């Protein structure tokens, strides 16, 4: 649904606003690197604007800290209504290495709703372009949760009340499951 909404509402150009709420500037440099002519994000219509009132998309870097959370919320509320938020980097996605520090509130989704997550520390410029392309519906999503099991648990229990028959012919009804 979000993909269709993106294609409808953000079909032409995305104007991005670039908000750092206490990161280390690594993700800022990668975002600005993605806007350079070598990667040339403007062929997708992505353009950097200086004010949140002009922007469709907010690119968040850095965790929500105690000092900047209110300013980040104000910048989000200043954006006009169909708006997307991208959390870029492991600080914005999960709070980063100092997620339990006294001055860090946590990921930016504690303050503002986040639509897309771009993981990495910092993510490559290709990863940022890939995330925007996934949001626009140009490319399929590759990430999926992985789960491994070395043994199957729980082992099914033996229920003697399911025994049928008497004498030599005794059938256990759930024998296939055991």
């Amino acid at each position, binding site marked *: 649904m979000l993909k269709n909404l993106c294609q409808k509402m953000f079909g032409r150009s995305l104007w991005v606003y670039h908000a750092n709420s206490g990161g280390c500037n690594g993700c800022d440099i990668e975002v600005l690197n993605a806007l350079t002519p070598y990667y040339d994000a403007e062929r997708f219509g992505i353009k950097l604007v200086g004010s949140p009132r002009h922007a469709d998309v907010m690119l968040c870097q850095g965790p929500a800290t105690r000092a900047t959370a209110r300013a980040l919320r104000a910048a989000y509320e200043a954006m006009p209504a169909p708006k997307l938020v991208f959390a870029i980097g492991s600080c914005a996605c999960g709070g980063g290495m100092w997620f339990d520090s006294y001055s860090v509130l946590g990921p930016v989704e504690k303050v503002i709703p986040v639509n897309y997550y771009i993981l990495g520390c910092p993510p490559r410029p290709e990863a940022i372009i890939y995330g925007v*392309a996934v949001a626009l519906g140009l490319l399929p999503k590759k990430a999926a949760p992985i789960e491994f*099991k070395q043994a199957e648990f729980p082992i099914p229990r033996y229920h003697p009340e399911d025994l049928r028959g008497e004498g030599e012919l005794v059938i256990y009804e759930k024998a296939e499951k055991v």
Partner: protein
Amino acid sequence: MTLPYPPEGHAVPETFRGRPVFDAEKCVGCGGCANNCSARCILVFDVCQELRILQYVGRRCTYCGRCAEVCPEKAITMSQEFETSTDNIGDAQQRLELFMTTCQRCGRCFKDETALEKLKMTGYRFDDLQNQRWIFGARAYQENEPAVKDIAIEMDW
């Protein structure tokens, strides 16, 4: 010249560290990766005696590679995947359910004493309480200033 990235793939350098991949076949469940994770994003939970859950919460992983470095069985490899962007943060996690065996004698899991615990001094010790300092080698210390002055200490060396 512009890189034609989204239609074509772009090769990463060989030393690039991407998302860590856990191999459940090799993992012995020692928890060394969880102890060394700088972002505390590998969690270990023992459900019961036989079952240990090792959960990698990928959302704050910084791809530092310390887990792959410390793994004794080389069960963690740093892959070169960087296209991990998603709209659901639960896509980043990996979850391993490990079957743990127990000690045949005591029925519990055990671990060796660490290097710090081996360094602890054992046995009787005679530190200097008045001057508040340790006595490591008694000979050099007593020659210069005897710890107990009013008792004549017989030196047999």
